[in-house]
């Protein structure tokens, strides 16, 4: 079994009016089967309200399934006595870095997780050091978090999760509030964790160019998985993605527009280099 697995996962919530009367039931996640292998880099796309964050919140037991089962490293997330083990196995990073940082000093903030796990002090410091190095924030260990840029804060948040030695990290739109270089820094750090440290990554994002290096992409719509494949397979379906309120990276879109004008190019071009190579062939 993979590190994260869901079977027939359904999550419903009840809508109520002001007096608390039931107005109806919304199915946010609708029979989702997912199997993520240890060490994979998974991306989840989907428009606002497609159910991707609700799905993500099941992976570290913030939400429990209405129907079906979620296993994290073999543990059923509905078993309450496994809660802390599950949250240490699958860490979560959210959109707004300011809501996730509590320490007065960067290294204290990163040490908070392992400290709460009852790790001996010496090991906490070792973990803090290696986590900050992994996200490239070690020089800032003595800084106050409020002196950092958005991208730096978000990397500190990731280090804080990393210090708990999770097997899997779920990132829910970690770059939505960042400037271009902040986005780049965070994505580079995430790829590093995956490739160097072997941490399983589940990345939710609205920025299409951030996921071209993912192993597999899932596209959600109305709580279901609407598309699944490699980035190339997914991004070669420009019209289908647009119908799902999504997009493709600019380079893919440019190649697609040129194709429509009769330039013979392969489908699903993902990088500038690929497009340049292909166009040189045409010339």
């Amino acid at each position, binding site marked *: 079994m993979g590190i994260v697995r869901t079977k027939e996962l359904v999550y419903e919530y009840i809508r109520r009016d002001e007096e608390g009367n039931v107005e109806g039931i919304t199915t946010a996640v609708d029979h989702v089967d997912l199997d993520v292998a240890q060490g994979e880099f998974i991306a989840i796309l989907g428009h606002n309200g497609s159910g991707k964050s609700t799905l993500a919140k099941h992976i570290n037991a913030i939400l429990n399934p209405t129907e079906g089962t979620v296993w994290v490293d073999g543990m059923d997330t509905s078993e309450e006595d496994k809660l802390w083990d599950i949250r240490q196995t699958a860490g979560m990073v959210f959109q707004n870095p300011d809501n996730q940082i509590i320490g007065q000093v960067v290294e204290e903030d990163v040490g908070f997780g392992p400290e709460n796990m009852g790790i001996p002090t010496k090991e906490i410091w070792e973990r803090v050091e290696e986590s900050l190095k992994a996200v490239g924030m070690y020089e800032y260990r003595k800084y106050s978090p409020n002196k950092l*840029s958005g991208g730096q804060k978000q990397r500190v948040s990731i280090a804080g999760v990393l210090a708990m030695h999770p097997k899997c990290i779920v990132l829910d*739109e970690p770059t939505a509030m960042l400037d271009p270089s*902040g986005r780049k820094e965070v994505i580079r750090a995430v790829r590093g964790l995956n490739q160097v440290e072997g941490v399983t990554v589940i990345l939710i994002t609205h920025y299409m160019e951030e996921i071209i290096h993912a192993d597999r992409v899932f596209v959600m719509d109305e709580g279901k998985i609407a598309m699944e494949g490699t980035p190339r397979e997914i991004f070669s379906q420009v019209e289908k993605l647009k119908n799902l309120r999504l997009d493709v990276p*600019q380079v893919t879109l440019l190649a697609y527009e040129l194709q429509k004008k009769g330039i013979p190019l392969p489908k699903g071009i993902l990088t*500038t280099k690929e497009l340049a190579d292909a166009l040189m062939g045409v010339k």
Partner: protein
Amino acid sequence: MSIILDHINYIYGADTPLAVKALDDICLQIPDGQFVGIIGHTGSGKSTLVQHLNGLLKATSGHIYFNGEDIYEKDYDRKKLRSKVGLVFQYPEHQLFEIDVFTDVCFGPKNLGLDKKEVELRAYDALRKVGLPDELFYQSPFDLSGGQKRRVAIAGVLAMKPEVLILDEPTAGLDPRGREEILHQIKELQMKTGMTILLVSHSMEDVAEYVNRIIVMNHGSVMYDGTPREVFSHYKELEEVGLAAPQVTYIMHELKDRGLDVDTDATTIEEAAETVLKALHRA
């Protein structure tokens, strides 16, 4: 008629040991009807700058002239200024609070002391302008999708009938279609009404696509001020200050380096496709 900033300086915590210079000798002129993009890394002074324009922050030194009048004059009506210069904050949907969409949009004009009929006319007009369908008018704002909530919040500011509309990252956290819809609507609003619009954004692709003029902020000063083509031709310098050019601009440079005679100043997919086609035909 225009906004003129004349040697504006702003220091946070002036006369304290923690004083930080947030704006450094800003001189700008924004004529009526322009669609201006403001870009800059986190902490570059973008938000501080726009908060000066409706008098939320008062410059430490310098003058601001709105329609020829100095807004810092003793008897200048700053309350009126705030209705003339509408500011939509980041994540404005967090400020929705009324029981239904229509009442929420009425809140602003009602506080201007207008009669009920005028208030309702304005609210209706504003909701139509942001493209919100009639059947949602009496829904609770909390039942809407992220993009719809954001439109309601923008309508709340439009209902004040501002001459200038400032939007601070109006598309953060929205899915690609949601981003496109909001920006398209804003562009249409600007073309139909001739309203001056200032758009603060972290998305270079969006700015390139929609605005006529870009102001680049860096360390509290204006670094560049020009058309998207002019500004993004400095892409190397922009990278040094935490920004970037749209992905297409990089593609054009790569193609040029490989010997395809394209216009490297292209900043949108449309322009890029056109210049690539031309270059291929010549070759």
